[in-house]
């Protein structure tokens, strides 16, 4: 069970989503999503695969555009941003992809250096190396700096993926299925890492998962998604204590998985 997080600023919203709709042709994926993420908070979005969880965070980081509704991130309407404004906003949002999405032609160290080189060209090499070392230490993989992504295990790759997004010091972290496809022990490691990142780097996060253990360990709040909208929100106990048919169904599904 996740301990109480004292650092949440309930008076400050970093992401605010209202009436979000998104369809791909006849496939109506998001059908009226509303969500508020407060500064310092970890929200877990729980839902079966194919319910549109990834689409939701891709809209937040402007990889996809919504059909209607508004997405406000750090006080800015994502859809209306100009090229340069979007670029600046993206530096404040860290997106952790499902399988790490490491650049497989580069070593771990180069993977971490790449976003820095591009976005902070005036940073000195020493400062860059220091940042890389800090991040690698934070994800517990300092020894892999010269390895290629192909030589890493699935769990290590996800950690480096998280590290690569941390290197730009984002205010918001979006995790796409951080524990999918990992063994239970590695899952626990990743869950701890997510909580540590929240504390140490003072991030606010949206964590997407269909893994109840991950939701329980990392979420200050759980939001359950079904058929393109949130059907239930609250702490883990609030969501799972009652005998709501839909929630039970999800619980069963998770055990079968």
């Amino acid at each position: 069970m996740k301990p109480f997080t004292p650092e949440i600023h309930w008076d400050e919203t970093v992401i605010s989503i209202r009436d979000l709709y998104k369809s791909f042709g006849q496939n109506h994926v998001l059908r009226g999503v509303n969500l508020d993420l407060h500064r310092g908070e970890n929200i877990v979005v729980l839902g079966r695969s194919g319910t549109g969880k990834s689409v939701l965070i891709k809209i937040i980081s402007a990889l996809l555009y919504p059909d209607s509704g508004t997405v406000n991130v750090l006080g800015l309407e994502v859809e209306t941003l100009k090229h340069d404004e979007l670029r600046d906003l993206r530096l404040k949002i860290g997106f952790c992809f499902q399988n790490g999405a490491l650049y497989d032609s580069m070593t771990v160290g180069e993977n971490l250096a790449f976003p820095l080189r591009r976005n902070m060209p005036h940073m000195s090499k020493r400062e860059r190396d220091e940042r890389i070392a800090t991040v690698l230490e934070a994800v517990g993989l300092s020894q892999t700096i010269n390895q290629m992504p192909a030589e890493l295990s699935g769990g290590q790759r996800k950690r480096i993926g998280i590290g690569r997004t941390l290197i730009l010091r984002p205010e918001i972290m979006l995790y796409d299925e951080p524990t999918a496809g990992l063994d239970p022990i590695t899952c626990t490691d990743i869950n701890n890492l997510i909580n540590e990142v929240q504390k140490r780097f003072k991030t606010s996060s949206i964590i997407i998962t269909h893994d109840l253990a991950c939701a329980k360990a990392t979420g200050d709040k759980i939001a359950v998604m079904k058929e393109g909208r949130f059907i239930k929100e609250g702490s883990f106990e609030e969501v799972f204590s009652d005998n709501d048919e839909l929630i039970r169904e999800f619980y069963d599904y998770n055990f079968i998985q």
Partner: protein
Amino acid sequence: MGSTERSEQPVITKGIDKFFLNFYDILKFVLRFFKEMFTPPYEGREFVRQCYYIGNKSLLLITLTGFITGLVFTKQSRPSLAEFGATSWLPSLISIAVIRALAPLVTALICAGKVGSSIGAELASMKVTEQIDAMEVSAINPFKYLVVTRVMACMLCVPLLMAYTGLVAMTGSYLDIHLNEQTSLAIFVQNAFEKISFLDFFSSFIKTLFYGFTIGIVSCYQGYHATQGTQGVGKAANVSVVISMFLIFIEEIIIVQVINMLR
């Protein structure tokens, strides 16, 4: 979108259909290329690295094919010329064939096979493993970094490789002629360049510039828009080669017509 779904049409012709249906997308892709090509910052290092890869990947095959083309073409042409006692025309016949047609085409087809497929597969695998999205969200312009550099590298390297192919093919031809007709190098070179004009070099250069552009754009487009997981990677590589080659032949026909009007 299940992976078990079987389409009736073979993958390749379906790819070609799709390519032309997506004509508007492709046009946008090409326009974006020209727009981003001229806006700074420029990705010099990645461009040089791509040029190196292209050369590295195709040089051995091009050397071998170029040499054999020159040698065999000389051997095959000799009997026909010998009938008229005109084997002394061999050098100029070969040089016209090599510089006007063989070198550009051989180079382009080999590059389409080697370079096109590898660019298609590389970008497609980056796409399906979300590496391209990862660049986008960390405020790096993936189009500029991946597409512009590769297309420009193709546009530089295919003409250079064509010049090299021509040289190697002429060497192969010279060896055969030297062994059979005892022609000296000086005479061979003099004969070879007798019937060749500046327009021939120029048109071959322009042709290969178009071929390089075609190979780069087609394979980058296929890779950049790959879908369907790992299956899409093989498909992108495959379709890149087929469509590049197809377009190269069409361009060859058109450009030859235009050049002949100028002549």
